Protein backbone atom coordinates (compact mmCIF):
# COMPACT_ATOMS: atom_id res chain seq x y z
CA UNK A 1 0.00 0.00 0.00
CA UNK A 2 1.19 3.48 -0.92
CA UNK A 3 0.65 6.09 1.78
CA UNK A 4 1.35 9.78 1.35
CA UNK A 5 1.37 11.68 4.60
CA UNK A 6 1.28 15.49 4.43
CA UNK A 7 3.68 15.60 1.49
CA UNK A 8 4.90 19.15 0.89
CA UNK A 9 7.41 20.55 -1.51
CA UNK A 10 9.09 23.93 -1.36
CA UNK A 11 11.73 24.56 -4.00
CA UNK A 12 14.97 26.33 -3.08
CA UNK A 13 13.70 29.40 -4.96
CA UNK A 14 10.84 29.68 -2.47
CA UNK A 15 8.05 28.34 -4.69
CA UNK A 16 5.60 26.39 -2.54
CA UNK A 17 4.59 23.72 -5.06
CA UNK A 18 2.88 21.20 -2.78
CA UNK A 19 1.08 22.02 0.42
CA UNK A 20 0.52 18.85 2.41
CA UNK A 21 -0.97 16.07 0.31
CA UNK A 22 -2.23 13.00 2.16
CA UNK A 23 -3.51 10.02 0.19
CA UNK A 24 -3.74 6.28 0.58
CA UNK A 25 -3.62 4.15 -2.54
CA UNK A 26 -4.47 0.45 -2.41
CA UNK A 27 -2.36 -2.11 -4.28
CA UNK A 28 -3.64 -2.48 -7.82
CA UNK A 29 -5.62 0.72 -7.70
CA UNK A 30 -5.52 3.16 -10.61
CA UNK A 31 -5.51 6.79 -9.54
CA UNK A 32 -5.61 9.70 -11.95
CA UNK A 33 -4.35 13.09 -10.81
CA UNK A 34 -5.80 15.99 -12.71
CA UNK A 35 -5.64 19.75 -12.36
CA UNK A 36 -4.73 23.04 -13.97
CA UNK A 37 -1.16 23.84 -14.94
CA UNK A 38 1.00 24.65 -11.96
CA UNK A 39 -1.20 22.73 -9.51
CA UNK A 40 1.73 20.55 -8.46
CA UNK A 41 0.57 17.29 -9.99
CA UNK A 42 3.92 16.54 -11.62
CA UNK A 43 5.71 17.63 -8.45
CA UNK A 44 3.59 15.14 -6.53
CA UNK A 45 4.49 12.35 -8.93
CA UNK A 46 8.18 13.20 -8.73
CA UNK A 47 7.99 13.18 -4.93
CA UNK A 48 6.47 9.68 -5.00
CA UNK A 49 9.12 8.49 -7.46
CA UNK A 50 11.92 9.68 -5.20
CA UNK A 51 13.50 11.64 -8.06
CA UNK A 52 12.60 14.90 -6.33
CA UNK A 53 11.84 13.96 -2.70
CA UNK A 54 9.30 15.90 -0.65
CA UNK A 55 10.67 18.65 1.56
CA UNK A 56 8.22 17.73 4.32
CA UNK A 57 5.97 14.77 5.00
CA UNK A 58 6.56 11.15 4.02
CA UNK A 59 5.89 8.75 1.17
CA UNK A 60 5.57 5.18 2.42
CA UNK A 61 5.40 2.11 0.20
CA UNK A 62 4.53 -1.03 2.17
CA UNK A 63 5.78 0.78 5.25
CA UNK A 64 9.11 1.68 3.68
CA UNK A 65 9.97 5.35 3.39
CA UNK A 66 10.70 6.51 -0.16
CA UNK A 67 13.32 9.23 -0.40
CA UNK A 68 15.17 8.08 -3.53
CA UNK A 69 14.25 6.05 -6.63
CA UNK A 70 13.12 2.59 -5.53
CA UNK A 71 13.11 -0.70 -7.39
CA UNK A 72 9.42 -1.27 -6.64
CA UNK A 73 8.51 2.02 -8.31
CA UNK A 74 8.63 2.50 -12.07
CA UNK A 75 8.10 5.74 -13.93
CA UNK A 76 6.99 6.63 -17.44
CA UNK A 77 7.62 10.18 -18.60
CA UNK A 78 5.81 12.38 -21.05
CA UNK A 79 8.52 11.67 -23.65
CA UNK A 80 9.72 8.10 -24.23
CA UNK A 81 13.28 9.04 -23.15
CA UNK A 82 14.75 5.99 -24.84
CA UNK A 83 18.54 5.83 -24.94
CA UNK A 84 19.36 6.43 -28.61
CA UNK A 85 22.52 4.28 -28.47
CA UNK A 86 20.66 1.15 -27.38
CA UNK A 87 18.43 -0.87 -29.65
CA UNK A 88 14.82 -1.44 -28.64
CA UNK A 89 15.69 -4.65 -26.78
CA UNK A 90 18.56 -2.93 -24.98
CA UNK A 91 16.28 -0.13 -23.88
CA UNK A 92 13.63 -2.52 -22.58
CA UNK A 93 16.28 -4.44 -20.65
CA UNK A 94 17.89 -1.27 -19.29
CA UNK A 95 16.46 -1.74 -15.80
CA UNK A 96 17.64 -5.35 -15.58
CA UNK A 97 21.37 -4.59 -15.59
CA UNK A 98 21.95 -6.71 -12.50
CA UNK A 99 20.24 -9.83 -13.88
CA UNK A 100 21.93 -12.74 -15.65
CA UNK A 101 21.99 -12.34 -19.42
CA UNK A 102 19.64 -15.22 -20.20
CA UNK A 103 16.97 -14.13 -17.79
CA UNK A 104 17.26 -10.60 -19.11
CA UNK A 105 16.84 -11.70 -22.71
CA UNK A 106 13.84 -13.87 -21.86
CA UNK A 107 12.06 -11.15 -19.90
CA UNK A 108 12.77 -8.54 -22.57
CA UNK A 109 11.39 -10.83 -25.27
CA UNK A 110 8.23 -11.60 -23.28
CA UNK A 111 7.56 -7.96 -22.53
CA UNK A 112 8.23 -6.81 -26.09
CA UNK A 113 5.76 -9.42 -27.28
CA UNK A 114 3.27 -8.19 -24.72
CA UNK A 115 3.45 -4.59 -26.01
CA UNK A 116 3.21 -5.86 -29.58
CA UNK A 117 6.71 -4.88 -30.68
CA UNK A 118 8.45 -8.26 -30.81
CA UNK A 119 9.51 -7.58 -34.41
CA UNK A 120 11.13 -4.26 -33.48
CA UNK A 121 13.65 -5.66 -30.97
CA UNK A 122 16.66 -5.05 -33.23
CA UNK A 123 15.65 -1.54 -34.32
CA UNK A 124 17.09 1.74 -33.12
CA UNK A 125 14.77 4.09 -31.20
CA UNK A 126 15.06 6.62 -34.04
CA UNK A 127 13.32 4.21 -36.36
CA UNK A 128 10.16 4.02 -34.25
CA UNK A 129 7.01 6.11 -34.45
CA UNK A 130 6.00 8.20 -31.44
CA UNK A 131 3.46 5.62 -30.30
CA UNK A 132 5.88 2.72 -30.72
CA UNK A 133 8.58 4.58 -28.79
CA UNK A 134 6.18 5.22 -25.91
CA UNK A 135 5.26 1.52 -25.93
CA UNK A 136 8.94 0.69 -25.58
CA UNK A 137 9.10 3.11 -22.66
CA UNK A 138 6.14 1.35 -21.08
CA UNK A 139 7.84 -2.00 -21.63
CA UNK A 140 11.04 -0.68 -20.07
CA UNK A 141 9.13 0.43 -16.98
CA UNK A 142 7.19 -2.86 -16.72
CA UNK A 143 10.12 -5.26 -17.14
CA UNK A 144 11.43 -4.89 -13.55
CA UNK A 145 7.86 -5.72 -12.38
CA UNK A 146 7.19 -2.60 -10.32
CA UNK A 147 4.53 -2.56 -7.62
CA UNK A 148 3.79 1.06 -8.38
CA UNK A 149 3.92 2.55 -11.83
CA UNK A 150 3.93 6.33 -12.13
CA UNK A 151 2.89 7.94 -15.40
CA UNK A 152 3.52 11.62 -16.03
CA UNK A 153 1.20 12.69 -18.86
CA UNK A 154 2.41 9.66 -20.79
CA UNK A 155 0.22 10.05 -23.86
CA UNK A 156 -0.09 13.82 -24.15
CA UNK A 157 2.47 14.08 -26.95
CA UNK A 158 0.64 11.54 -29.14
CA UNK A 159 -2.11 12.05 -31.68
CA UNK A 160 -5.69 11.39 -30.52
CA UNK A 161 -5.98 8.03 -32.25
CA UNK A 162 -2.70 6.61 -30.92
CA UNK A 163 -3.57 7.99 -27.50
CA UNK A 164 -6.86 6.09 -27.25
CA UNK A 165 -5.13 3.00 -28.54
CA UNK A 166 -2.39 3.19 -25.91
CA UNK A 167 -4.87 3.90 -23.10
CA UNK A 168 -6.66 0.63 -23.88
CA UNK A 169 -3.32 -1.12 -24.24
CA UNK A 170 -2.15 0.20 -20.87
CA UNK A 171 -5.21 -1.26 -19.16
CA UNK A 172 -4.58 -4.55 -20.90
CA UNK A 173 -0.99 -4.60 -19.63
CA UNK A 174 -2.07 -3.53 -16.17
CA UNK A 175 -4.35 -6.57 -15.95
CA UNK A 176 -1.29 -8.90 -16.02
CA UNK A 177 0.29 -8.08 -12.67
CA UNK A 178 -2.06 -5.32 -11.49
CA UNK A 179 0.49 -2.82 -10.25
CA UNK A 180 -0.72 0.38 -8.63
CA UNK A 181 -0.94 3.06 -11.30
CA UNK A 182 -0.72 6.75 -10.58
CA UNK A 183 -1.40 8.75 -13.68
CA UNK A 184 -0.90 12.48 -14.00
CA UNK A 185 -2.90 13.90 -16.88
CA UNK A 186 -4.79 16.96 -18.03
CA UNK A 187 -7.06 14.93 -20.27
CA UNK A 188 -10.37 14.36 -18.42
CA UNK A 189 -11.42 11.51 -20.76
CA UNK A 190 -8.12 9.74 -20.19
CA UNK A 191 -8.53 10.03 -16.42
CA UNK A 192 -12.02 8.56 -16.50
CA UNK A 193 -11.23 5.77 -18.96
CA UNK A 194 -8.35 4.53 -16.86
CA UNK A 195 -8.85 5.37 -13.21
CA UNK A 196 -10.73 3.97 -10.25
CA UNK A 197 -10.43 7.35 -8.62
CA UNK A 198 -9.82 10.82 -10.02
CA UNK A 199 -8.07 13.28 -7.73
CA UNK A 200 -8.56 16.93 -8.67
CA UNK A 201 -5.77 19.20 -7.50
CA UNK A 202 -5.75 22.96 -7.10
CA UNK A 203 -2.75 25.27 -7.10
CA UNK A 204 -0.88 27.67 -4.81
CA UNK A 205 0.13 25.57 -3.03
CA UNK A 206 -0.76 22.32 -4.77
CA UNK A 207 -3.22 20.23 -2.78
CA UNK A 208 -6.07 17.80 -3.33
CA UNK A 209 -9.30 19.65 -3.95
CA UNK A 210 -11.73 16.82 -4.60
CA UNK A 211 -11.83 13.10 -5.21
CA UNK A 212 -14.25 11.44 -7.58
CA UNK A 213 -14.69 7.69 -7.62
CA UNK A 214 -15.21 6.15 -11.05
CA UNK A 215 -17.46 3.14 -10.55
CA UNK A 216 -17.79 2.08 -14.15
CA UNK A 217 -17.12 -1.46 -15.36
CA UNK A 218 -14.15 -1.93 -17.69
CA UNK A 219 -13.76 -1.67 -20.62
CA UNK A 220 -15.37 1.73 -20.45
CA UNK A 221 -17.38 3.17 -23.29
CA UNK A 222 -16.25 6.76 -23.85
CA UNK A 223 -19.63 7.51 -25.44
CA UNK A 224 -21.91 6.13 -22.73
CA UNK A 225 -24.22 8.28 -20.60
CA UNK A 226 -22.60 7.00 -17.39
CA UNK A 227 -19.18 8.05 -18.68
CA UNK A 228 -20.56 11.46 -19.52
CA UNK A 229 -22.06 11.79 -16.06
CA UNK A 230 -18.72 11.17 -14.37
CA UNK A 231 -17.05 13.51 -16.83
CA UNK A 232 -19.45 16.32 -15.90
CA UNK A 233 -18.69 15.79 -12.23
CA UNK A 234 -14.94 15.92 -12.84
CA UNK A 235 -15.26 19.02 -15.00
CA UNK A 236 -17.41 20.72 -12.39
CA UNK A 237 -14.85 19.92 -9.70
CA UNK A 238 -12.08 21.28 -11.90
CA UNK A 239 -14.02 24.44 -12.46
CA UNK A 240 -14.54 24.94 -8.76
CA UNK A 241 -10.90 24.10 -8.02
CA UNK A 242 -9.85 26.99 -10.22
CA UNK A 243 -12.26 29.59 -8.93
CA UNK A 244 -11.63 28.63 -5.32
CA UNK A 245 -7.88 28.54 -5.67
CA UNK A 246 -6.10 31.19 -3.63
CA UNK A 247 -6.32 34.36 -5.68
CA UNK A 248 -3.50 34.24 -8.21
CA UNK A 249 -0.95 37.03 -8.31
CA UNK A 250 -2.13 38.14 -11.73
CA UNK A 251 -5.19 37.37 -13.76
CA UNK A 252 -3.11 36.18 -16.68
CA UNK A 253 -1.86 33.08 -14.87
CA UNK A 254 -5.41 32.11 -14.05
CA UNK A 255 -6.58 32.58 -17.61
CA UNK A 256 -3.76 30.41 -18.95
CA UNK A 257 -4.53 27.72 -16.37
CA UNK A 258 -8.13 27.68 -17.54
CA UNK A 259 -7.08 27.48 -21.16
CA UNK A 260 -4.88 24.51 -20.42
CA UNK A 261 -7.83 22.67 -18.99
CA UNK A 262 -10.29 23.32 -21.75
CA UNK A 263 -8.16 22.57 -24.77
Amino acid at each position, binding site marked *: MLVLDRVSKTYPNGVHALGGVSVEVDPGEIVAVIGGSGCGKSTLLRAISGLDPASEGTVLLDGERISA*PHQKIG*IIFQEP*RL*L*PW*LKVAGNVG*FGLGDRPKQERAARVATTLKRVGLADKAAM*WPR*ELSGGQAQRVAIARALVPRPEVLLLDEPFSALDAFTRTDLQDHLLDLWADAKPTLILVTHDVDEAIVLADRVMVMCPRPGRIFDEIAVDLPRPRDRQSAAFDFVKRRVLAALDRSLSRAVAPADGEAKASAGAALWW
Partner: protein
Amino acid sequence: MALVTMTIAAEQRGAVPAERTAAKKWARLARPALGLVLPVTLAVVWEFVVRMGWASGRLAPPPSVIFQEFVDLARSGDLQRNTLVTLGRVAAGFGCGVAVATIVGAAAGYSPVIRRLLDPSLQALRAIPSIAWVPLFVLWLGIFEASKITLIAVGVFFPVYLGVMGAIQSVDRKLVEVGRAFRLSDVQMVRRILLPAVLPAYVIALRSGLGLGWMFVAAAELLGASEGLGYLLLDGQELGKPAEIVAAIVAFAVVGKATDWLIALAAAPFLRWEDVVRQE
Protein backbone atom coordinates in the same frame (compact mmCIF):
# COMPACT_ATOMS: atom_id res chain seq x y z
CA MET B 1 53.48 20.69 -56.72
CA ALA B 2 50.42 22.88 -57.16
CA LEU B 3 48.61 20.01 -58.85
CA VAL B 4 49.16 17.61 -56.05
CA THR B 5 48.20 20.02 -53.30
CA MET B 6 45.03 20.65 -55.24
CA THR B 7 44.33 16.95 -55.33
CA ILE B 8 44.80 16.71 -51.58
CA ALA B 9 42.59 19.68 -50.92
CA ALA B 10 39.90 18.32 -53.19
CA GLU B 11 40.03 14.94 -51.49
CA GLN B 12 39.75 16.38 -48.01
CA ARG B 13 36.94 18.71 -48.94
CA GLY B 14 35.04 15.95 -50.69
CA ALA B 15 35.48 13.31 -48.00
CA VAL B 16 34.32 15.09 -44.86
CA PRO B 17 30.88 16.37 -45.94
CA ALA B 18 30.23 13.12 -47.81
CA GLU B 19 30.56 11.27 -44.50
CA ARG B 20 28.56 13.74 -42.48
CA THR B 21 25.65 14.92 -44.55
CA ALA B 22 25.27 11.90 -46.80
CA ALA B 23 22.68 13.44 -49.07
CA LYS B 24 21.21 11.13 -51.66
CA LYS B 25 22.74 7.87 -52.70
CA TRP B 26 23.50 8.85 -56.28
CA ALA B 27 25.13 12.04 -55.06
CA ARG B 28 27.40 10.02 -52.79
CA LEU B 29 28.63 7.92 -55.67
CA ALA B 30 28.84 10.72 -58.21
CA ARG B 31 30.42 13.37 -56.04
CA PRO B 32 33.87 11.82 -55.45
CA ALA B 33 34.09 10.79 -59.10
CA LEU B 34 33.26 14.32 -60.17
CA GLY B 35 35.82 15.71 -57.76
CA LEU B 36 38.55 13.62 -59.44
CA VAL B 37 37.96 15.09 -62.88
CA LEU B 38 39.82 18.37 -62.33
CA PRO B 39 42.98 17.10 -60.58
CA VAL B 40 43.38 14.09 -62.89
CA THR B 41 42.93 16.24 -65.97
CA LEU B 42 45.44 18.80 -64.73
CA ALA B 43 47.95 16.06 -63.88
CA VAL B 44 47.60 14.44 -67.29
CA VAL B 45 47.85 17.80 -69.07
CA TRP B 46 50.96 18.79 -67.10
CA GLU B 47 52.61 15.45 -67.75
CA PHE B 48 51.86 15.89 -71.48
CA VAL B 49 53.15 19.49 -71.51
CA VAL B 50 56.45 18.47 -69.90
CA ARG B 51 56.86 15.38 -72.10
CA MET B 52 56.35 17.50 -75.22
CA GLY B 53 59.14 19.79 -74.00
CA TRP B 54 56.85 22.85 -73.82
CA ALA B 55 57.90 23.38 -70.22
CA SER B 56 60.96 22.18 -68.30
CA GLY B 57 59.04 21.01 -65.22
CA ARG B 58 62.09 21.80 -63.10
CA LEU B 59 60.20 23.76 -60.41
CA ALA B 60 56.88 21.98 -60.85
CA PRO B 61 57.76 18.36 -61.61
CA PRO B 62 55.23 16.27 -63.55
CA PRO B 63 53.47 13.31 -61.88
CA SER B 64 55.85 10.72 -63.26
CA VAL B 65 58.90 12.45 -61.72
CA ILE B 66 57.16 12.77 -58.37
CA PHE B 67 56.27 9.10 -58.49
CA GLN B 68 59.88 8.20 -59.32
CA GLU B 69 61.08 10.33 -56.38
CA PHE B 70 58.64 8.49 -54.17
CA VAL B 71 59.98 5.14 -55.31
CA ASP B 72 63.59 6.27 -54.80
CA LEU B 73 62.84 7.58 -51.31
CA ALA B 74 61.09 4.33 -50.43
CA ARG B 75 63.95 2.21 -51.81
CA SER B 76 66.56 4.06 -49.80
CA GLY B 77 64.36 3.70 -46.72
CA ASP B 78 64.36 7.46 -46.19
CA LEU B 79 60.61 7.68 -46.69
CA GLN B 80 59.76 5.00 -44.13
CA ARG B 81 62.25 6.25 -41.55
CA ASN B 82 61.14 9.86 -41.78
CA THR B 83 57.46 8.96 -41.83
CA LEU B 84 57.90 6.83 -38.71
CA VAL B 85 59.71 9.64 -36.90
CA THR B 86 56.96 12.11 -37.73
CA LEU B 87 54.26 9.59 -36.86
CA GLY B 88 55.96 8.98 -33.52
CA ARG B 89 56.00 12.70 -32.74
CA VAL B 90 52.32 13.07 -33.65
CA ALA B 91 51.43 10.01 -31.59
CA ALA B 92 53.29 11.31 -28.52
CA GLY B 93 51.92 14.84 -28.84
CA PHE B 94 48.42 13.68 -29.64
CA GLY B 95 48.47 11.22 -26.74
CA CYS B 96 49.59 13.83 -24.21
CA GLY B 97 47.27 16.52 -25.59
CA VAL B 98 44.24 14.23 -25.63
CA ALA B 99 44.90 12.85 -22.15
CA VAL B 100 45.17 16.28 -20.53
CA ALA B 101 42.36 17.80 -22.61
CA THR B 102 39.98 14.94 -21.79
CA ILE B 103 40.56 15.21 -18.06
CA VAL B 104 40.44 19.02 -17.94
CA GLY B 105 37.51 19.18 -20.38
CA ALA B 106 35.53 16.58 -18.45
CA ALA B 107 36.15 18.37 -15.15
CA ALA B 108 35.21 21.75 -16.63
CA GLY B 109 32.11 20.30 -18.28
CA TYR B 110 31.00 18.55 -15.10
CA SER B 111 31.74 21.20 -12.48
CA PRO B 112 30.69 24.83 -12.96
CA VAL B 113 33.23 25.87 -10.34
CA ILE B 114 36.13 24.31 -12.23
CA ARG B 115 34.79 25.77 -15.46
CA ARG B 116 34.66 29.27 -14.01
CA LEU B 117 38.15 28.79 -12.59
CA LEU B 118 39.88 27.40 -15.69
CA ASP B 119 37.93 28.31 -18.78
CA PRO B 120 38.72 32.04 -18.97
CA SER B 121 42.46 31.39 -18.77
CA LEU B 122 42.29 28.59 -21.31
CA GLN B 123 40.23 30.71 -23.68
CA ALA B 124 42.81 33.46 -23.38
CA LEU B 125 45.62 31.01 -24.11
CA ARG B 126 43.66 29.67 -27.06
CA ALA B 127 43.72 33.09 -28.66
CA ILE B 128 47.52 32.85 -28.98
CA PRO B 129 48.64 31.30 -32.27
CA SER B 130 50.29 28.09 -31.09
CA ILE B 131 53.36 28.64 -33.27
CA ALA B 132 54.08 31.74 -31.17
CA TRP B 133 55.00 29.41 -28.31
CA VAL B 134 57.89 27.88 -30.23
CA PRO B 135 60.68 30.22 -29.06
CA LEU B 136 59.60 29.79 -25.46
CA PHE B 137 59.35 26.01 -25.76
CA VAL B 138 62.81 25.92 -27.34
CA LEU B 139 64.23 28.00 -24.47
CA TRP B 140 62.51 25.85 -21.86
CA LEU B 141 62.74 22.41 -23.40
CA GLY B 142 65.60 22.57 -25.87
CA ILE B 143 65.56 22.09 -29.61
CA PHE B 144 64.99 18.34 -29.62
CA GLU B 145 61.92 16.14 -29.18
CA ALA B 146 60.41 17.65 -26.03
CA SER B 147 59.69 21.06 -27.53
CA LYS B 148 58.20 19.57 -30.71
CA ILE B 149 55.94 17.17 -28.84
CA THR B 150 54.83 19.94 -26.49
CA LEU B 151 53.90 22.15 -29.43
CA ILE B 152 51.83 19.34 -30.97
CA ALA B 153 50.19 18.58 -27.64
CA VAL B 154 49.22 22.25 -27.23
CA GLY B 155 47.71 22.25 -30.70
CA VAL B 156 45.74 19.06 -29.99
CA PHE B 157 44.63 20.23 -26.55
CA PHE B 158 42.24 23.03 -27.47
CA PRO B 159 39.82 21.37 -29.89
CA VAL B 160 39.63 18.28 -27.68
CA TYR B 161 39.15 20.33 -24.51
CA LEU B 162 36.37 22.40 -26.08
CA GLY B 163 34.73 19.31 -27.56
CA VAL B 164 34.72 17.33 -24.32
CA MET B 165 33.52 20.24 -22.22
CA GLY B 166 30.71 21.09 -24.65
CA ALA B 167 29.67 17.46 -25.00
CA ILE B 168 29.41 16.91 -21.25
CA GLN B 169 27.49 20.12 -20.75
CA SER B 170 24.99 19.20 -23.43
CA VAL B 171 24.21 15.66 -22.20
CA ASP B 172 20.42 15.39 -22.10
CA ARG B 173 19.39 15.77 -18.46
CA LYS B 174 16.24 13.82 -19.19
CA LEU B 175 18.32 10.74 -20.01
CA VAL B 176 20.39 11.24 -16.87
CA GLU B 177 17.09 11.20 -14.99
CA VAL B 178 16.20 7.86 -16.59
CA GLY B 179 19.47 6.57 -15.16
CA ARG B 180 18.52 7.92 -11.74
CA ALA B 181 15.04 6.37 -11.93
CA PHE B 182 16.72 3.00 -12.54
CA ARG B 183 19.03 3.62 -9.58
CA LEU B 184 22.33 3.56 -11.46
CA SER B 185 25.43 4.04 -9.33
CA ASP B 186 27.83 6.87 -10.25
CA VAL B 187 30.08 4.47 -12.14
CA GLN B 188 27.14 2.92 -13.99
CA MET B 189 25.82 6.38 -14.79
CA VAL B 190 29.13 7.30 -16.43
CA ARG B 191 29.42 4.01 -18.30
CA ARG B 192 25.82 3.54 -19.41
CA ILE B 193 24.62 7.13 -19.95
CA LEU B 194 27.37 9.76 -19.97
CA LEU B 195 30.02 7.99 -22.05
CA PRO B 196 27.71 6.90 -24.86
CA ALA B 197 26.08 10.32 -24.89
CA VAL B 198 29.42 12.11 -25.15
CA LEU B 199 31.10 9.76 -27.61
CA PRO B 200 29.95 11.23 -30.95
CA ALA B 201 31.15 14.72 -30.04
CA TYR B 202 34.34 13.24 -28.56
CA VAL B 203 35.21 11.46 -31.79
CA ILE B 204 34.72 14.68 -33.74
CA ALA B 205 36.91 16.50 -31.23
CA LEU B 206 39.62 13.82 -31.53
CA ARG B 207 39.58 14.08 -35.29
CA SER B 208 39.88 17.85 -35.36
CA GLY B 209 42.59 17.58 -32.68
CA LEU B 210 44.49 15.09 -34.81
CA GLY B 211 44.22 17.43 -37.80
CA LEU B 212 45.85 20.18 -35.78
CA GLY B 213 48.44 17.69 -34.53
CA TRP B 214 49.54 17.05 -38.12
CA MET B 215 49.59 20.75 -38.83
CA PHE B 216 51.86 21.43 -35.90
CA VAL B 217 54.21 18.54 -36.52
CA ALA B 218 54.90 20.00 -39.96
CA ALA B 219 55.49 23.41 -38.40
CA ALA B 220 57.73 22.00 -35.67
CA GLU B 221 59.84 20.00 -38.11
CA LEU B 222 60.15 22.90 -40.53
CA LEU B 223 61.51 25.03 -37.71
CA GLY B 224 64.40 22.69 -37.20
CA ALA B 225 64.73 18.92 -37.35
CA SER B 226 67.24 16.40 -38.57
CA GLU B 227 64.67 13.81 -39.52
CA GLY B 228 60.96 13.53 -40.19
CA LEU B 229 58.73 14.39 -43.13
CA GLY B 230 59.10 18.08 -42.31
CA TYR B 231 62.86 17.62 -42.60
CA LEU B 232 62.32 16.20 -46.11
CA LEU B 233 60.41 19.38 -46.97
CA LEU B 234 63.26 21.51 -45.71
CA ASP B 235 65.87 19.32 -47.40
CA GLY B 236 63.99 19.56 -50.71
CA GLN B 237 63.85 23.32 -50.41
CA GLU B 238 67.53 23.74 -49.57
CA LEU B 239 68.76 21.36 -52.26
CA GLY B 240 66.26 22.64 -54.84
CA LYS B 241 64.46 19.31 -55.23
CA PRO B 242 60.75 20.13 -55.70
CA ALA B 243 59.89 16.47 -56.34
CA GLU B 244 61.14 15.59 -52.85
CA ILE B 245 58.99 18.36 -51.36
CA VAL B 246 55.90 17.16 -53.18
CA ALA B 247 56.64 13.55 -52.23
CA ALA B 248 56.84 14.59 -48.56
CA ILE B 249 53.59 16.54 -48.89
CA VAL B 250 51.88 13.50 -50.39
CA ALA B 251 53.25 11.36 -47.57
CA PHE B 252 51.85 13.87 -45.02
CA ALA B 253 48.46 13.74 -46.71
CA VAL B 254 48.34 9.95 -46.91
CA VAL B 255 49.49 9.30 -43.34
CA GLY B 256 47.31 12.12 -41.97
CA LYS B 257 44.24 10.85 -43.73
CA ALA B 258 45.04 7.26 -42.70
CA THR B 259 45.27 8.14 -39.00
CA ASP B 260 42.02 10.12 -39.22
CA TRP B 261 40.40 7.16 -40.91
CA LEU B 262 41.69 4.86 -38.14
CA ILE B 263 39.94 6.95 -35.48
CA ALA B 264 36.73 7.00 -37.50
CA LEU B 265 36.99 3.25 -38.04
CA ALA B 266 37.66 2.49 -34.37
CA ALA B 267 34.68 4.61 -33.31
CA ALA B 268 32.27 3.36 -35.97
CA PRO B 269 30.98 0.28 -34.08
CA PHE B 270 30.02 2.51 -31.14
CA LEU B 271 28.33 5.13 -33.28
CA ARG B 272 26.13 2.97 -35.45
CA TRP B 273 23.07 4.34 -33.68
CA GLU B 274 24.03 7.74 -35.06
CA ASP B 275 24.42 6.48 -38.61
CA VAL B 276 20.73 5.77 -38.69
CA VAL B 277 20.12 9.47 -38.22
CA ARG B 278 22.56 10.31 -40.97
CA GLN B 279 21.00 7.97 -43.49
CA GLU B 280 17.50 9.28 -42.96
